């Protein structure tokens, strides 16, 4: 059976200054989740994936600074949808590696206040769980947010070109859950991205991939370079983490072709970890088995 990937376009979601039209964004989410889960009632949609008593982690990506991170509006809108479905606000956390990066991306940290929690692993009292997790080529400590607190996870990643991995999206976003991602960038991050995802702490908790493709860095990533960043105004949804990233990769290749850039394969940095992930049965990474539904919100 083919894996479904929903690509929702939201023309005008970014205005001239790059600010977000919140209403438009919300309709992109609603439409995307409806199309993904085939449910008409948006409130009930997310309860197909989560239980009301779940503790849900929204793992965002804030490594590249304000211009190329998961924006607060994007993650908070998703959090709102989750709480609207019946998950308590206090059981939703928006998080990444460090508070410094979260703040630089425009987040107001919320460590003890009411509402959604927003903080990084480096907050005192959080840290990495000291139990070393070993799986094939992976040997890492996991953020206690991922290992101890959350029961379900959404990877809300930025879609970017990556100098070593080729593409960084939903699966590689989980590099931000471990203490030593710097050790997993050899060989185009292959097999590390797939093997990290395969660890119980990730695979059993991951429920949904959403690729923030409002602005796509299609070349010279993962840093922000305005010259190669396209206002793409889309969100990509899938329950299949490999298929979501596979479609993200195709988006990047299309943008590169449009700008006359060589393919990632020609630059010797094709995201081969997706094939590895497919071989492991983590999802689909081929055109014949990925069904793309593209809609305008």
């Amino acid at each position, binding site marked *: 059976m083919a894996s479904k990937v929903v690509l929702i376009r939201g023309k005008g979601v970014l205005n001239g200054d790059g600010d977000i039209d919140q209403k438009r964004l919300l309709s992109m989410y609603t439409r995307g989740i409806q199309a993904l889960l085939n449910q008409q009632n948006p409130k009930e949609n997310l309860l197909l994936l989560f239980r009301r008593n779940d503790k849900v982690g929204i793992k965002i990506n804030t490594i590249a600074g304000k211009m190329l991170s998961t924006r607060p509006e994007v993650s908070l809108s998703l959090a709102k949808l989750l709480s609207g479905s019946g998950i308590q606000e206090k059981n939703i956390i928006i998080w990444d590696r460090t508070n410094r990066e979260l703040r630089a991306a425009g987040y107001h940290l919320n460590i003890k206040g009411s509402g959604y929690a927003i903080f990084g692993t480096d907050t005192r009292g959080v*840290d990495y769980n000291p139990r070393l997790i070993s799986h094939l080529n992976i040997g890492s400590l996991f953020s206690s947010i991922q290992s101890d607190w959350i029961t379900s996870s959404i990877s809300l990643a930025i879609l970017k070109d990556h100098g070593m991995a080729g593409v960084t999206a939903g699966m590689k976003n989980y590099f931000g859950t471990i203490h030593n991602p710097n050790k997993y960038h050899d060989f185009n991050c292959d097999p590390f991205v797939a093997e990290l995802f395969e660890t119980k702490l990730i695979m059993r908790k991951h429920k949904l991939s959403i690729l923030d493709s409002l602005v796509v860095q299609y070349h010279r990533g993962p840093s922000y370079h305005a010259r190669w960043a396209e206002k793409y105004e889309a969100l990509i949804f899938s329950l299949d983490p490999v298929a979501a990233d596979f479609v993200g990769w195709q988006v990047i290749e299309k943008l590169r072709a449009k700008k006359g850039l060589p393919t990632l394969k020609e630059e010797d940095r094709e995201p081969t970890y997706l094939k590895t992930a497919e071989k492991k049965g983590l999802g689909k990474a081929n055109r014949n088995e990925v069904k793309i539904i593209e809609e305008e919100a």
Partner: protein
Amino acid sequence: MKRRQFFKTTGGISLVAGSGLESLLMNLYAFEEKANLSKVEALYYKKHSDREIECLLCPRYCKLGDKERGYCGVRENMGGTYYTLVYGKACSINVDPIEKKPFFHFLPRTNALSIATAGCNVNCKFCQNWEISQVRPEQVEHYDIPPSKVVDLAKKYSCPSIAYTYTEPVVFYEYMYDTSKEARLKRIKNAVVTGGHINPEPLEELTKVVDAIKIDLKAFTQDFYTSYVRGELQPVLDAIKIVHKSNVWLEIVYLVIPTLNDSQNEIQNLCRWIMNEIGPDVPLHFSRFFPMYLMKNLPHTPLSTLEKAYKIALAEGLHYVYLGNIPSHRAESTYCPSCKNKVIQRIGYQIKKIELKEGKCKFCNNPIPGVWT
């Protein structure tokens, strides 16, 4: 302070499976980041277009975009300038016997002020100090201790040398280099304990300011380096040759791991290479492996395997072969290659007797190479 101790002091360990956000928040107190890292420009790198840089310190040649860190985790590209984050940020400081490094022909029976920062440029699956070597600097507690203070501490504790050790000193190159220069001014020697995964130019510069380098040769096959070290063999062999050609005292350690790098053939090839390229006088230590980090599936090295390696090395003509991590074994001691008498008797890190006079065997006057005073 090591990582394990650090967890105990921060309360991070109090989080247990099944705890929820409320209990998590109860464990949090005044928000505080642990960072406080250095921002000292790295010595060896090249700037490229679009704020990209290429690190030239080690054979990885990490190419990094803005805000990215190298494989070592302790160097970061900030807006097209490459910085070391660990200059003056030692995470471990101890006074150790020099024999612990091990150096057997370098200032025996003295202590070395031993320092390390976080980080490493390889990822050995059998690392003994992974809790500080395989982490980023903000993940361990560290001391603010600039080079001058390190030298002061060495003097305070009567250490005639400073050892750069525990993790991989190549990754704190600038800190080690400046400390070594200051130490020399105060007549303190410098000893480096490294995996030798460093490029020729920085290594040659380093040999101008340090006195001894011990290189951990992890195996003698590239396959082992690929699978268990995540590094390359050839640059390490090149580093050994560079140190040998310099005026710096060299010793080599080979950790013998059952089934992975302990074949007779591999040990023989290693010894022949040393004989051909370096000569018989470089001390070679065969160390016993103990299961740890990501390699807990193998037993410790049998004594018979180590003794076999010892015999092979002697048969190949090496003069100073030692067995490590086996306290009281006769192969911990130094024997004069000429008259075969014991000239330094060791038990573990303790020196029981030194039978040398001005660097020569007391019994037959044969020179024993090393830095003895």
